[in-house]
């Protein structure tokens, strides 16, 4: 903000000076621009430097010496949900708490991105369908959910709906091997019994997936040469499944699936996604899917009527037209804004604080900050984490856009 005002002022004043003394060296635009930039660099760096100094000083006055030594101190509070790293109260250090927070953020982001993409494409396709009721339903869905604050939606689902209406564990809602109740979602978890054989099994699976890709390329070449096509997806999938299941038994069941079983008061076995995570995931999915649905609608609408007529006039069937003409063109419009939505979803997962899910902002920028007072380092690390996510997203977007540009120009 400061630098903008200063750039403005410098430019204006120098303009005036130059106006009065015409044969001045200042009139040389290159020289003038170099001076302005030098002043700007100085001001910005000086501002940052003095802000940093004041902050460190102020922190020291409050008895906090800014340093990273607190990383290795033991965190005096409990983090209830950490599926990837073990949390032990009295052993886990602050820096581990940070990692747990980051991983929890990434977990809900990945779960949310998968679900929001599926739901968003579904709603977007309904919105573009030729069924009037489906169109209007999708329209209402989009307009309701994207025009209300996400935080309000998270709180609504968590406090007003799930906490209030989900049954206690004994009367859990059953979805196959999944159980939903007022404490969260109980899920099956794989338990590895023989580590070596499990790795072998995993290797076989990965190998057959790679083989299926080779098979796909071979089938494509064969089609190019002879015009005969094979149901590649069907063959690959069934082969992978058959190999996966048969090698599972041949290797003597290297892992087992631990199913949640209802005990006397609560579930035993399996894993649990705590209710805050479930609510957050649910709300993020619903909210983001409304935006993705709108992208999908716009993408499908961007394929002109002329394209569809041309596709029909050369005799393509409807599924061929969708696969060869509509999807490739629509995806070019859909993908870039949808990638931005993925970033938004990741940033929005920080609203978890409102329901108590333990992601990075909650456990690090809030609890750890309050405990240690290390505002400078903690806030900086939180921001850097999100900036990395954001840079990663722009990186992906740039690659995508460049690829599109090559095929277009």
């Amino acid at each position: 903000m400061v630098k903008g005002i200063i750039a403005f002022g410098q430019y204006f004043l120098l303009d005036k000076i130059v106006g009065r003394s015409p044969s001045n060296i200042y009139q040389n635009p290159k020289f003038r621009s170099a001076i302005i930039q030098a002043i700007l660099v100085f001001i910005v760096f000086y501002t940052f430097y003095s802000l940093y100094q004041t902050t460190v000083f102020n922190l020291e006055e409050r008895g906090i010496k800014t340093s990273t030594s607190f990383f290795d101190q033991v965190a005096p509070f409990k983090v209830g949900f950490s599926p990837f790293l073990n949390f032990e109260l009295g052993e886990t250090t602050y820096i581990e708490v940070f990692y747990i927070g980051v991983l929890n953020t990434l977990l809900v982001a990945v779960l949310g991105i998968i679900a929001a993409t599926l739901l968003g494409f579904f709603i977007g396709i309904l919105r573009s369908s030729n069924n009037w009721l489906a169109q209007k339903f999708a329209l209402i869905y989009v307009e309701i959910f994207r025009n209300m604050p996400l935080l309000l939606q998270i709180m609504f689902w968590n406090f007003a709906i799930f906490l209030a209406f989900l049954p206690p564990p004994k009367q859990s809602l059953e979805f196959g091997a999944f159980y939903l109740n007022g404490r969260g979602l109980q899920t099956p978890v794989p338990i590895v019994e023989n580590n070596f054989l499990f790795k072998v099994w995993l290797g076989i699976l990965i190998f057959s997936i790679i083989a299926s890709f080779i098979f796909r390329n071979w089938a494509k070449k064969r089609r190019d040469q002879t015009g005969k096509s094979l149901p590649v997806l069907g063959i690959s999938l069934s082969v992978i499944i058959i190999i996966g299941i048969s090698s599972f038994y041949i290797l003597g069941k290297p892992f087992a699936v631990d199913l949640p079983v209802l005990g006397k008061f609560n579930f035993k076995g399996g894993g649990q996604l705590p209710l805050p995570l479930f609510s957050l995931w649910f709300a993020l999915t619903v909210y983001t899917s409304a935006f993705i649905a709108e992208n999908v609608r716009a993408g499908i609408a961007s394929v002109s009527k002329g394209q569809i007529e041309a596709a029909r006039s050369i005799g393509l069937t409807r599924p061929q037209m969708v696969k060869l003409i509509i999807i490739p063109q629509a995806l070019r419009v859909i993908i870039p804004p949808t990638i931005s939505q993925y970033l938004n979803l990741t940033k929005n997962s920080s609203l978890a604080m409102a329901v108590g899910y333990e992601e990075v902002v909650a456990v690090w920028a809030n609890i750890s900050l309050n405990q240690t007072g290390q505002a400078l380092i903690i806030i900086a690390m939180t921001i850097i984490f999100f900036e990395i996510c954001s840079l990663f997203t722009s990186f992906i977007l740039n690659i995508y856009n460049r690829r599109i540009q090559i095929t277009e120009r």
Partner: protein
Amino acid sequence: MTKSDSIIKISKLNKWYGKFHALKDIDLSVGRTEKIVICGPSGSGKSTLIRCINRLEVHQEGSIQVDGIELTDDIKQITEIRSDVGMVFQHFNLFPHLTVLENCSLAPIWVRKKSKVEAEEMAMQLLEKVRIPDQADKYPGQLSGGQQQRVAIARALCMQPRIMLFDEPTSALDPEMIKEVLETMIELADSGMTMIVVTHEMGFANRVADRIIFMDEGQIVEQNDPESFFKNPESDRTKLFLSQILDH
């Protein structure tokens, strides 16, 4: 070119857009290798008529038979007819995400189930015929309008159609490009293709057409061979139209 050997038979065709009566009692039969030019003021129904022939528009009354197959709701029959009837649009409608060569070989591969090699070979031959083989690996966006329209003609020809429909193929082009497209169309006509062309290019009509059809208000006002059509138009409407378009 006897009437009995007609490849398209249209009888009592009526078409409405909402409540607007767009085509009225059209009767028309087109012989094999016949070249027909349809002209008329805008909104006269000429585009609608040829778009009905490959079912881009759905008619409500009457019948259309293409090569003995009746156009109904049967999707299989429609697809079959479409692969026999090539169409060239006013705005080219090339697929922007595919190269020129891919534009041309797409339908032979997916509809005719040809091998890619074979399809591309034929596409190259046809691109040579429309004189742009050197642009085969470019994308449509990189070509001029005239080049795009010639690719569109090649794309339609790749299906080895028996009938070619042209929907105002030159009206979106700059004057200097009209000529190159018309030349391609004349060559095609000389090769014996059955063609129905909606156009205002009267020079082309005079040179190529076996029959010129004048339409207005969704009706066929008159049809005749070019000489009689230009010299002795029967209807007052035709005269008015010709005087407007030829004074131009």
